């Protein structure tokens, strides 16, 4: 069981390895606009893995297979790893680390405000995954899943909003997110 979790976690890190190879010129390289490639790649994989993580919970709920309870945490952290890289490559490389410019850029750009909000949600969830905070984590599960869902919804919105025309993937992810949220509400209603 532990082995399967480890293998799946490693697989989820594969895109990052590919991106690193691209950085060294393999797999057709980073292209004419390397920073854009890095930002899009990390953002896209961050949201994809986050959604996969969220899908696992309902599957576990109905199948009662233990693996599905073990997977969300490591996968969620991998997703956060991509999203932190996504944010850092935007802030440090694209904007040159200039805090003033970043703040103005975020305020001026609606999809960045949304993305920033989602990032803060997910970052705070990542922090409570530390061992010392485990008791608090266990006591506040519903709050935590609420914040995670908010983060994911904002993330998908951020993805959707920066496209120029209607593209398949953001629409698909939005639909999945809608279903997941509906399911979450149904579950919490059933419990109460």
């Amino acid at each position, binding site marked *: 069981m532990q082995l399967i979790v480890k293998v799946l976690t490693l697989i989820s890190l594969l895109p990052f390895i590919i991106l690193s190879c691209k950085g060294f010129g393999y*797999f057709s390289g980073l292209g004419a606009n390397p920073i854009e490639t890095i930002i899009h790649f990390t953002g896209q994989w961050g949201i994809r893995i986050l959604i996969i993580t969220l899908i696992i919970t309902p599957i576990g709920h109905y199948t009662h297979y233990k693996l599905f309870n073990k997977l969300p945490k490591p996968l969620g952290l991998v997703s956060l790893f991509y999203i932190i890289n996504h944010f850092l490559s935007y802030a440090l490389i694209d904007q040159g680390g200039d805090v003033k410019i970043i703040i103005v850029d975020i305020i001026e750009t609606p999809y960045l405000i949304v993305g920033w909000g989602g990032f803060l949600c997910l970052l705070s969830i990542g922090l409570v995954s530390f061992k010392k905070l485990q008791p608090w984590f266990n006591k506040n599960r519903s709050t935590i899943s609420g914040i995670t869902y908010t983060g994911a919804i904002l993330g998908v919105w951020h993805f959707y909003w920066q496209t120029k025309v209607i593209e398949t993937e953001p629409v698909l992810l939005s639909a999945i997110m809608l279903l997941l949220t509906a399911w979450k509400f149904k579950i919490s209603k059933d419990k109460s």
Partner: protein
Amino acid sequence: MIIQKNSVVKSSEITPEKIYLKRRNLIKSIGMISTIAPWGITFGQSKEPPKPLTAANFKTNSMYSTSEPKNTFEDITTYNNFYEFGMGKTDPYQNSGRFEPSPWTINITGEVEKKGIYDIDDLIDMNTLEERIYRLRCVEAWSMVIPWLGIPLASIIQKLEPSSNAKYVSFETVYRPKEMPGQKRRILNWPYIEGLTMAEAMNPLTIIAVGLYGRDLLNQSGAPMRLIVPWKYGFKSIKSINKIHFQEAQPKTSWNLAASNEYGFYANVNPEVDHPQWSQARERRIGNSFFGTKQPTLMFNGYGDEVAHLYKNLNLKKYF
């Protein structure tokens, strides 16, 4: 008065064919590796190198050319927005192999004396081509410097003798879903349509390009002929034109139809009017150093001296 000075392009400024072909082969061999890879990046399409232009000698129009460093041929031809071939930046480069730019005809219609279907060579005298090194500013806040080869659009329009009713000129990209896989989905209202006022079309900066870097245009760059309007966002510079229509009413252009609050008819480069989703104040110059910061965007993309007078009485915040 500025006296127009023409200078012959040094052969050293053009990417040598050998290096160019070597790069192609490298890209191809990398492509073979990546087609095996599970994440589906395919660089398998092999393409013929561009044919040298029919015009052996062309001159650089230094009056209208910038001295800023040019982007490489590779950057210019592998990073494109050409939705007819897909929405990704490398899609036009990867998916345009099946496109057939020759033979090519252009249909001239509307308020014009010399209507009809013209062969490209009848419309453009390949012996009068000149090089224009222009800045290109994409609406997505990136930019390049590109050495185009072409002729002023005005010289074509004069030949066609538009009537006094011709207030606007519109252009259409060819519609060939079999050769342009992006047209199989209605991302935009195909065929792609763009337009200019007559004054904009007659401005000496406006050209019809048939080449870049001394070679015929590659398919991904809008072969065999495209518009270049350097003071407007890139989407105005329509590619692979096969129809030019003169008309009295303002043309209904593709991006304007798709989202009129985001893309205006004029679409002049303007750092003060933001796109609703992002700021237009700064731009990333492609090919600059990786950690380089963005540079400020110039009004009319730096071509204000030549074109600002066209918009003297126009509220640019309203007519963006």
